[in-house]
């Protein structure tokens, strides 16, 4: 995510009590992403910028936190079987002096059965639409599998239709962007570089998110997403929940069957080497209109 990108007046700056909705097609990794957010601050602790992510008393989120440990121990999270609402709170750090700019945002995920917020036909699940309609900002996850398999041709149309539904729910005039900011996140970004071996981390670090996503998913999709927010209020991010093996630079995930991956199992021992890749940056962008691109070392 380009921290130096200028954001138009009215879009920049911190937003208190921001409600962020997460959405994405089935297989995008929405639940896994939220699970990784809950644990990420403990595995990648920065002394200068301390994020906190908590369940805020939400029982579904607490169950997800418990499941998150299975995930980093090498198990797979179960696919979403029933509509589940999650609510998590993210505390973003302020300045070192007097914590100026510190703020909290709330993340909401309405995970429908099958996990598909962008169904191929028909409208989205009503509760998904309502969750999106109550949100100020959108975190849209699309899987990097599309770079290999090709994005569904109708995906840009589905995104535009979802935007129109949400706008109608909010009572906005036709054509007006329904969200204040949108973060377009390419999840499973390690798939873009998995053939690079020990150079995988460096290869991903060299990529710039917007052109990489455009190349992977197509310009039409970029344009469809950019219609969901005012000009300049769309951020792009390459994210990997599995991350990279610290000290080696290889992707941390190992194959777990056809089309699926998991973290390596370490005989029941805690996988302290887990380093999720830039999972917090989309949230910070949505909260502030820009984010610090922390220099990572692997």
């Amino acid at each position, binding site marked *: 995510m380009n921290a130096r990108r200028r954001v138009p007046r009215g879009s920049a700056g911190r937003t208190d009590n921001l409600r962020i909705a997460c959405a994405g097609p089935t297989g995008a990794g929405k639940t896994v992403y939220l699970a990784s957010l809950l644990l990420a601050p403990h*595995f990648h602790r920065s002394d200068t910028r301390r994020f906190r992510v908590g*369940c805020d*008393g939400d029982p579904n*989120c607490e169950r997800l936190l418990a499941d998150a440990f299975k995930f980093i121990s090498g198990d797979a999270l179960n696919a979403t079987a029933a509509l589940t609402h999650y609510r998590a709170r*993210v505390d973003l750090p302020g300045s070192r002096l007097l914590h100026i700019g510190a703020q909290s945002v709330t993340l909401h995920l309405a995970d429908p059965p099958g996990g598909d917020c962008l169904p191929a036909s028909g409208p989205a699940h009503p509760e998904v639409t309502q969750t999106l309609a109550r949100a100020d900002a959108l975190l849209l996850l699309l899987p990097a599998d599309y770079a290999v398999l090709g994005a569904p041709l109708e995906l840009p149309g589905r995104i535009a239709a979802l935007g129109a539904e949400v706008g109608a729910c909010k009572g906005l005039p036709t054509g007006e962007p329904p969200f204040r900011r949108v973060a377009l996140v390419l999840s499973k970004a390690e798939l873009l570089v998995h053939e690079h071996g020990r150079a995988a981390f460096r290869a991903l670090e060299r990529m710039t998110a917007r052109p990489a996503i455009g190349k992977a998913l197509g310009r039409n999709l970029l344009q469809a997403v950019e219609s969901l927010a005012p000009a300049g209020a769309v951020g792009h991010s390459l994210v990997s929940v599995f991350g990279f093996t610290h000290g080696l630079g290889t992707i941390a995930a190992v194959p777990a069957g056809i089309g699926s991956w998991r973290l390596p199992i370490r005989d*029941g021992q805690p996988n302290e080497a887990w380093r999720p890749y830039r999972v917090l940056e989309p949230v910070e962008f949505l909260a502030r209109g820009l984010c610090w691109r922390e220099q990572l070392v692997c």
Partner: protein
Amino acid sequence: MSQHRSIIFGPTKAGKTLFLASLQHAADNRERGEQGRNYRIQPHNPDATTLFANARELIAGNAAAINATRSLQRFEFGFRIDQGLDPLMRAWVSLRDFTRTVRGLAVDQGLEISMRDGPGGWLFDDSAVSVDGELDYQAEMVGRQELLDDLRAADSAILCIDATAPDRAMTFFRSLPSITGRLGSSTLPFKRLAICLTKADAHFQSERHSARRAMERQDPVARARTILTRPGVNALFNYLEIDAEVVVGWTSAFGFTANGEANFDPGTQSLLMHAGLVDAREAIEGWRPCNVLDPFVFLATGDPGNFRRWRP
């Protein structure tokens, strides 16, 4: 008296109850005026009175007197530190206190500590180690919530972890981030946190007569890092205020004998020297819990004593 809300927490079988139980004897059995201080501990509720009374049974060789906690108990006691002062300083302090009293200001003479002690497994989801006997599930749910509420409301805390059990790393790895997650994203309000590596006597027992010296030489921070695991340490420090003070140190409820040997009999799980083996006077004076007062002094005054400050 200054009121402090403190909580003692840690996984099951970390030795929290015995640690607390040895507190009064530790204060009574110190050399008067040692380090310029005297300590007085006064139980203020039946649970605390019973706990301190049961602890004295250890001198008689009754190891079963202190059992792991099966229900939520609250121990309330006064912890008073009398600073040893020379006559001139004592006169000055008296004049200062008189002036404050005339002005209607409180005169700080000590601490009132309220500690809730619950089964460790209620906060740390530890299916590998369970308290013997039946657990009422409903009571456990209520108790866990009360412990979480106490965590939120406490201004200082003592975290007990078993120094002899590095395999408990999985407990902390799973539980500590989960506990802080259940608290929401608000910070833990602890101004001071003392991490006690309990059972130091058992940990260094193999050193025989050099046990105490070995304990004093070994860095407790390194051991705490190993047991808590990196994500556990990160979770703890992520949720503490930036200016929170954290110390870590070895503690031993059984203590060490005069010749440096651990005063712990692994066969009976009790004192090595007790009234069944030596005369009563020798047993009483020989039981000297090690460093159990230090965390309380730290919570009250900020003086780490024999503990080490930890700034990750």
